[in-house]
């Protein structure tokens, strides 16, 4: 069902050309434009933030550029691959994820006291990052095999059990942020498979109870679950003075950076919070604060708006997905972006705890760049399948 006007030369077009034309026509250019804009801003901001770091900004900017190039390859590969083919292999994927995490345990390298990476020469890979997208695919596949057959309550518990296994492994690395992301996409999948609303209410109440038990009751009776620094990180956003040298310091400096940017920002030369090293992790977890300092409210509102566009396009693709599996995956990916963007920006502006979740397309880092690019690729693939190409 082609709407193209046929010219005499068009008759000679072979099937490959026809298909390429269709693929390009199915691409969500608005989504890609938002991702490209964030990626470009990311390179500039990393350059500003790391200009006075040891070795200069070249190191980080060049590496991030390489990550973006590889990311584009991953994006194209994911866009070309038919997502639906992954539906039948949830157990294989779960096994692979757990296997990769086990490899990290065995031979992983430790950075800042956390063992998350597999060393690959000049680069290193963080399997738990890939797990963010894999978990969506795994949970969607397992859910749709059982939806309608398994009683909804049991299904929710079953999927929760599946999520808990890799989440605990990642939590023990320790990487609290990524573990939380796994639960976020679990919620996203539950929403998409029409889990009754009451389940979410129960989970909300349960979450409050767990927080109270873990943060208040158990430490009070002498059985702390979280390490002291973890607890400090989680609570210092409410009261930065509780941990003034650790995360309280980070939050304070991030707020000073963002606040001092004012309406229009202080520009590259004036961004002293970032360039004079007052702001820690300025190219990774706190890169949003650098945007706030350099570009002011104009910049931060722009970044929030770009994420708004990405989420809008993701939900639009969700609504138009060809199969239920693809629909659940797309919804899960939308949830992934909502959660990561909100938690990271919220952490930068002092309304969310410091959990070490990078800002998609903005933070320096290979694994999460590749993961998020892959997620965009999957969205494009689902959009492509909609038109039957």
């Amino acid at each position: 069902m082609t709407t193209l006007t046929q010219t005499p030369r068009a008759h000679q077009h072979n099937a490959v050309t026809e298909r390429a034309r269709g693929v390009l026509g199915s691409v969500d250019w608005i989504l890609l434009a938002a991702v490209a804009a964030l990626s470009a801003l990311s390179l500039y901001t990393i350059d500003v933030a790391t200009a006075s770091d040891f070795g200069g900004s070249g190191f980080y900017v060049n590496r991030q550029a390489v990550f973006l190039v590889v990311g584009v390859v991953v994006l194209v590969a994911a866009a070309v691959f038919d997502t639906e083919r992954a539906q039948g292999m949830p157990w294989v994927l779960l096994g692979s994820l757990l296997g990769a995490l086990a490899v990290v345990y065995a031979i992983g390298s430790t950075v800042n006291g956390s063992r998350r990476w597999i060393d690959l020469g000049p680069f290193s890979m963080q399997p738990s990052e890939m797990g963010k997208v894999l978990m969506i695919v795994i949970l969607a596949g397992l859910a749709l095999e059982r939806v309608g057959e398994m009683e909804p309550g049991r299904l929710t518990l079953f999927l929760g059990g599946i999520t808990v296994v890799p989440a605990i492994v990642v939590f023990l690395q320790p990487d609290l942020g990524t573990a939380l992301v796994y639960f976020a996409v679990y919620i996203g999948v539950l929403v998409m498979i029409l889990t009754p609303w009451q389940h979410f209410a129960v989970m909300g109440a349960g979450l409050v109870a767990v927080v109270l038990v873990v943060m208040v009751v158990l430490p009070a009776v002498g059985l702390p679950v979280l390490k002291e620094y973890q607890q400090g990180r989680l609570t210092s956003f409410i009261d930065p003075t509780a941990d003034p040298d650790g995360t309280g310091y980070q939050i304070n400096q991030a707020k000073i950076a963002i606040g001092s940017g004012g309406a229009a920002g202080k520009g590259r030369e004036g961004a002293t919070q970032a360039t004079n090293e007052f702001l820690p992790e300025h190219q990774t977890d706190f890169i949003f604060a650098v945007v706030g300092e350099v570009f002011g409210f104009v910049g931060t509102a722009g970044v929030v708006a770009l994420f708004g566009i990405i989420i809008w396009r993701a939900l639009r693709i969700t609504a138009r997905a060809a199969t239920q599996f693809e629909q659940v995956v797309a919804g899960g990916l939308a949830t992934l972006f909502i959660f990561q963007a909100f938690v990271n920006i919220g952490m930068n502006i002092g309304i969310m705890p410091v959990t070490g979740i990078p800002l998609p397309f903005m933070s320096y880092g290979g694994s999460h760049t590749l993961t998020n690019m892959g997620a965009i690729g999957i969205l494009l693939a689902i959009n492509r399948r909609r038109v039957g190409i």
Partner: protein
Amino acid sequence: MTLRRHRPGGRGPLTPATAVRIAALGTAALVLMGVLMARLWFLQIIGGQAYAQRAEANRIRTVDLPAQRGTITDRNGKVLARVREGWNIVARPLELPNPKRQLVVRRLAEMLGTPPRPMLKALAQGQQNSPYEAVVLEDDVPLDIRTAFVERQRDFPGVAVERSYVRTYPDGELAAHVLGTVGPIYREHVTSYRDQGYLGNETVGHTGIEAQYESYLRGTRGELRVEVNVAGQPVGRGILSSRSPTPGNTLVLSLDAKLQAALQAQLYQRVEGSAATGAAGVAMNPQTGEVLAMASYPTFNPEDYARSRVKRLTAYQNSKRQPLTNRADEGLYPPASTMKIVTLASALQTGIVKPGAVLLSDSSVELWGRNWINFGKEYQGYLSLPQALEQSSDTIFYGFGDKFFRRYRSNGVELQQRWAHDFGLGQKTGIDLPDEADGRIPDKQWKRTYPFPDGYQRQWLPGDNINMAVGQGDVLVTPLQMAVAYSVIANGGHRVVPTLGKRIETPAGSLVRQLSGTKASTPVTLSPSTLSIIREGLRGVTSGPGGTATGVFGPVPLKGGFAGKTGTGENYGREDHSWFVGYAPADNPKIVVAIVVANGGTGASAAAPAVCATMGEYLGYDPGLCGVAPPKKTN
């Protein structure tokens, strides 16, 4: 599998139920983004200014440049205390980066004739600590090196000669007690100094004039504003602004350095090699109250404080000789017979005795059931009032004390005390020194409240008045107070406020503030006959046939003569305190001198020769002319 399968051109799996779910996700996203936008608005638009200030506070570090403390001179401009103007060769690591540093330091070492390594080490250390502050490469360089350096300045980019400021005293212990001490702020006072705009590590005046005129002497420190990173290291733009320090003002004292030296030499001579435990003296202009010399012995070297020589300071603190006490305005002694001018003036002014009275100075007198003995149990016969002063009769003055007690008993008025206060005794004189003592003129209120041992007789008794009349009992005064009291006689009835500060000048020499002559004196009502009787008596002391100090002052041919009074303070079992207070020339007084030698014996034997010799320096006669005390014990 209940999965709906899309076919090209067909409808997707979107059902109303899933549409609601997608809408829910969209709504959640919108709400969360709204939260972020609201918070960003609050931080950047509303709170922007405040956060901008905090960012500035983060990045800007202020380096303080100390001010040069003001100079203190005597009345003739002779420097008593200044800052040492040593020349240091310095470099700021920030301004001397490394490839250049090696070359310049090697060249400099060659010129100075020293090895380069210590300098490079000092620079490397400075770089780590505070790279924008000067590192001293060579301190106290001689003038020829400095000149050579300045001529070749171009060869040494980034290196400079700078002054270093250390308080120094060209004449060591000269006027040490007057000048006082400087040093770092004591830890317990840091907060209150900070409130006055000081930094915790500044040098301040602790005692004496240095403390009294701190606000004029301190100057205004300068500062350097530098942009730094989180480690405190300067970055890119480096120095943002700078303000030079303003040196402190010059303080001109009314002291006369030569007279001061003469007084100190006399005190030293009276104490060392004798049983005396200490001595103090004041020389003052009796007309204006300007203090010409003020000294106390044992003394200390203020340089020990400026250089923080801890061992010496501890030794001063612990010494039983109390070298840190300025006995001239903090030391309390019974005035003994020097008090008699006050007793006589008040007796004449209140009608207790008539000017022409001739009274018996018996060897003793019985009053209120007690036998009061004349000094040395001497019978002096009938004496006029000037003669009673000249020969320092005690029995005649006991009689005055007795009459003061009777007046007090009849009308309750403490006349004797009132007159003592009018002459400035038993109260602060108001001199510009921070730690002046009050002294004591006893009265019934004091007797009632003083913490005597239990069972002590607290009632005011006749003996209290009688003792006070001869400056004994519970009367305590400072040498400075006695100088003020004798000035009243010398200047004809004015209680002056003694002053040490003469004026404040800028370092360039223009007047900032006049200090001396600004405090009004208080009139003391004395009739001409009272004045002439006392003046005649005081001249007799130094020149009369029965004068207690004629042997000391008699040989000195001074035009106008001397006037003064000896005093021998009883000291309950220990050697007496030796006093002399006098002025000269007697007919036109230019100087009043009060000296006490603690445990120094009689007034004529120790204090009077010291006063005579000291005055010689000021009045221009040979101090060697002053005689020695007569062998006869007199008070």
